[in-house]
Every structure is written in structure tokens, then in C-alpha cells.
């Protein structure tokens, strides 16, 4: 299948076309960002993209939240892809969901997506220069949380003079950010779409993230996070990414895609990677190190670990979301085992018991956690149905 078939090209009527990121300083010495960890941070710059037009009433804003390794480039084709060459042959990460006539219809909505604090795609993070030292922060960067991301994003909306969010939506870690929006600024948010995410990561999920960080930090080039002048801990980061990819696929999808196939004719009886699944993981690992910063991976997985929406209600989801008047749509995928259906289902039940406006759908898919990026047709239908019903009945 060629790229042209898989994606809407920049000239397609269903594509938002060529896009360009914006950068804005949202915290400085006079107005630093106070973080959940207690530290104050400045300067803070944020990279974001927008698609569609803000209407006169300013009530058509859709805020899209990205996942662990995501960025502000949610849709369309990066007109400056020379700077980030991996974007050359593919559009933004949720391009199937965002565009004219798509679920988040840019003919109707003004879509905003910003890169999170601690990342490495234009928003301030551990690879940014610490004004105190003139060197990249590395591990001196403060620990950031999903709560901090939402507070920072609030500043972005203030900057854009936006007070109301029609819909906040995100998959995986982005789903956590979406629910945090509902918790922190319930009066601003009308619809919340939480896809492949629950109120907190499971113990198993915490364990995977911990091993990812061990992998990075035990790379000799890691140098306690101070590696920006020399070689990056690419081996550690690629191991972390390989591990993560196992958690993104389902057992069934892996079996179907690779089975026990070998790359060569038969076993070589040498200690070399030779199963197809190994070379897939190698490919994913090496592709990732060319586009992601190891320290950012550490910080963002940490934010993912810390997040627990239920903690705002003393462990009780009903209590936590008590004051949220929003319409909730929760979506799980049947073979997702990182954010398992049962966790998302449990959250849906709790929101029902709090008599919130909630619907929950488990989309059948073999694609595992990755389904939130793959099952676009089904997910798009669900999202469209929820938005249209909200606009009629809400």
C-alpha cells in the first residue's frame, strides 16, 4: 500500500493541508509556572498547531491531547518537515480524526493541539537550555505532571483569548490529560472524549514504564541525563521503545503480523536477531531514537505514572468528578492490555453511579493499545455520533 492510499495527501479535500506550528512563551520570570512538585519554572515556551477557524462566539474549540511520544502535529502535513524529516512521508498522528468532514470536523471546529511540558517537540523540556547554567536542563528539569500540562494549556487558551472548550479529547496519556481538563476546569469544558485511557495506570503499566527508564538510565552514555554535548543514550532509549511497542500491540496482532517467521531461510544458530518480530522491534527502536529525547521519555513516563484522577476524590472516581457537568465519552479497545478495557469500563460505571452524562464503548479490535491510532473508522463514527447528539440534545 502506498502512502497515498493510507493518508489523505496535502491537497486532499479531507486534509487540513500544509500546516505550520506556532511557538509562544507562556511563562517568564515575572509570571513563572508553578508546578505540582512545588518548583517554579521559567521560561516556558509552548509549540502548538491549530486547524480550522475560531468562530465568532468562540464556542467551537476542540482541544486535542497527544500521547507519550506524540507532538502538537496532530493533523495535516508539516510545511517545515525539513527540520523534522520523519514527518515528510506522513501527516499528523491523528490525521484520520481531524480534518474537513472528519470526526473532529475542521469545517465546524477550531482544533488546537499543543506539545506537553517536558517533551522535545518545541515545548520546554529537559533538552531546553536552563537559563541559570546556559546548558540543557537534563535531569535538573523539574518533574512535571499531567496537572501541570493542563495548567500550562490553560495559559495557551488565555493567550488565544479562549474561555470555552467545546470538546477536549485524547488517546492514551492524552486521554488522561483530557480527563484532567474536566477535573481542573469543569466549567470550561462541554465534552470530554477519553480514548484508550483510564483514571490511572495499572501496576503492570507502572512496571513497564519503570523498566523503560531503567533501560535508558543504564545506558553508559546516559551520564545522569547530561549527554547533550556527546552521544545520546540511543541504545537505552531504543530498548525502552521496543518494550513499549510490545505493550502497544496485542498478542493476536503480533501473532498475525509476525508469528514465528524468520528473516532468513532457517535458523542461523548464532546470537543475532533473526525473527521477524525482532527486526520489527529493532526498526521501531532505531526509528524512535532519531526523533525523541531520552530525558523527555523519562519525564513523560513519570507524569504518566503519577497521574491518578481518582486521587482527587480520595480514590473515589465518583467523588473526583462530582462537580463536572461535562458530557463524557469513554472508549476502550477490546485487545488493549496497557489501558485494559476492564479499567475503562470500571471508570464508566463509576461516572454512571455519579449520574454523570457518560457513555462507554468497547470497540472490537485486534490492534491492542495502538488501536486508538489505527481504528480510525470506528472511532471516528463513535466520536461523530457523540458530538452530533450533544449538539442536538445538549
Amino acid at each position, binding site marked *: 500500500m502506498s502512502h497515498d492510499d493510507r493518508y489523505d495527501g496535502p491537497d486532499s479535500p479531507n486534509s487540513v493541508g500544509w500546516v505550520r506550528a506556532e511557538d509562544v512563551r507562556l511563562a517568564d520570570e515575572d509570571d513563572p509556572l508553578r508546578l505540582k512538585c512545588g518548583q517554579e519554572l521559567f521560561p516556558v515556551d509552548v509549540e502548538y498547531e491549530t486547524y480550522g477557524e475560531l468562530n465568532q462566539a468562540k464556542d467551537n474549540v476542540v482541544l486535542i491531547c497527544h500521547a507519550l511520544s506524540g507532538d502538537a502535529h496532530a493533523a495535516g502535513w508539516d510545511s517545515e518537515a525539513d527540520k523534522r524529516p520523519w514527518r515528510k512521508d506522513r501527516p499528523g498522528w491523528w490525521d484520520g480524526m481531524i480534518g474537513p468532514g472528519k470526526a473532529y470536523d475542521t469545517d465546524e471546529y477550531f482544533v488546537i493541539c499543543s506539545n506537553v511540558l517536558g517533551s522535545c517537540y518545541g515545548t520546554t523540556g529537559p533538552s531546553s537550555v536552563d537559563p541559570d547554567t546556559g546548558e540543557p536542563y537534563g535531569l535538573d528539569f523539574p518533574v512535571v505532571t499531567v496537572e501541570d500540562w493542563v495548567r500550562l494549556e490553560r495559559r495557551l487558551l488565555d493567550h488565544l483569548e479562549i474561555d470555552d472548550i467545546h470538546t477536549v479529547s485524547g488517546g492514551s496519556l492524552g486521554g488522561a490529560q483530557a480527563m484532567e481538563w474536566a477535573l481542573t476546569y469543569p466549567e470550561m469544558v462541554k465534552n470530554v472524549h477519553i480514548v484508550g485511557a483510564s483514571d490511572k495506570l495499572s501496576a503492570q503499566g507502572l512496571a513497564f514504564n519503570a523498566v523503560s527508564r531503567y533501560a535508558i538510565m543504564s545506558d553508559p552514555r546516559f551520564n545522569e541525563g547530561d549527554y547533550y554535548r556527546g552521544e545520546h543514550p540511543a541504545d537505552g532509549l531504543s530498548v525502552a521503545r521496543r518494550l513499549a511497542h510490545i505493550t502497544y500491540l496485542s498478542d493476536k496482532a503480533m501473532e498475525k503480523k509476525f508469528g514465528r517467521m524468520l528473516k532468513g531461510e532457517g535458523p542461523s544458530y548464532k546470537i543475532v536477531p533473526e525473527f521477524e518480530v525482532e527486526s520489527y522491534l529493532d526498526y521501531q527502536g532505531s526509528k524512535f531514537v532519531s526523533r525523541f529525547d531520552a530525558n523527555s521519555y523519562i519525564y513523560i513516563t513519570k507524569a504518566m505514572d503519577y497521574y491518578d484522577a481518582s486521587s482527587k476524590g480520595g480514590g473515589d472516581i465518583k467523588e473526583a468528578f462530582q462537580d463536572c457537568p461535562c458530557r463524557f465519552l469513554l472508549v476502550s479497545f477490546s485487545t488493549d492490555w496497557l489501558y485494559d478495557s476492564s479499567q475503562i*469500563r470500571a471508570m464508566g460505571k463509576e461516572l454512571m453511579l455519579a449520574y454523570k452524562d457518560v*457513555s*462507554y464503548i468497547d470497540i472490537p479490535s485486534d490492534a491492542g493499545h495502538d488501536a486508538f491510532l489505527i481504528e480510525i473508522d470506528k472511532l471516528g*463514527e463513535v466520536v461523530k*455520533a457523540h458530538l452530533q*447528539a450533544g449538539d442536538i440534545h445538549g
Partner: protein
Amino acid sequence: MDERWDHAVIYDLIPKGSKVLDLGCGDGSLLSSLVEEKGVVGYGVEKDWMKVLEAVAKGVRSLNLDIDDDLKDLPENSFDYVILERTLQEVRLPGEALKNALSIGKYAVVSYPNISYWRIAQSLVSQGRMPVNVAIPYSWHEPKTVHMISIRDFLDWTEGNRVEVEEGYCLVEGEVEEYHPKHTTTASEALFVLSKTD
């Protein structure tokens, strides 16, 4: 909305503003009218995700849950009414489903096809076949196994489980009648409102 008799009966008996849980809500048409016209706070439970999608499109709050697996731990009296409209005969564990419904709700509203309806008996005896009709739309070999519920067996169950029968209705040759013991073989379908005995 289809013209099902039990739809109309349930619609009439649910008070305005009640909290309602509809188990096996399908495309949400019953809830949709209850919510829109009677100000009910309603939630649907449905196993088939495509049906949930239809309900969501109608603006009905619907959750993709399994009645057999996902309703055990819900707190008592979370809802005023729990509806099992022509659902009970299709769940795996009907007894559990009824007990859960009666625990979660103050009242349970249950409708089902009556297996002791004389036409079913006649078909079995004279033709040697189970009729496949509107009330029981599946053949024996189809995956949706249907539990055979007769009015008398059902009422025995309520007695044995200390469940109060508040109201009863039957569909008798196309007419809705209040339940009377004489309907045990003349009713093609039955509907009962149940509550827990204190």
C-alpha cells in the same frame, strides 16, 4: 420507535424524573423517549457496541457492558427502576440478573415471552416444532440461547426469592391486560414490576 406493547406500558409506569437503568437497551429508543419526554435520568446497558453507538447517536447515555459480568458490584438502590425489557430470556444467568436488578434498583420491570402460551404448546404438539416468532425470534441452534420462561415458573421464582410482585401485565391476543392467573396460557408475553420485600 417500534410499536412494542411493553414499551408503552413501561413508558406509562415510570414516574417523571426517575433514575432508570435499562438493561439490554438496544438502540436506546425506550430511554430516548423517557429522557426526552419524562425527564428521566437514564442509562442503558448494552453488549453490542454497534447498538451502543446507535443509542449514543440518539443522545442516550449508554454503556457497553455485559449484564452477566458487569453488574455484580453496583451499590444497592442506585436507580429507581431497572428495566429488563425482553432481555431476561437472553442473558446467561437470568436468576443472577434478576437479583442484581432488584439490588441496584428499587423496582425491577421485567418483560419476557411466555413459553406456556397455548399457541407455542400447540405448535410443539401438533407440528412438532418450536415456533420462531416475534417474541422468540431464534431457532434452537442459533447462538442466542433463549431461556424458556413461563409466567407460572417466573412467579414461583419471585415467591422463592422473597420478591414482591407489584404489578403485572400480559399481552393476550394483541390486547394488553392486567395480569390474572387465567392468562398463564393465553398470554404470549408478560410484564411484571417487582420489588424487594423488606
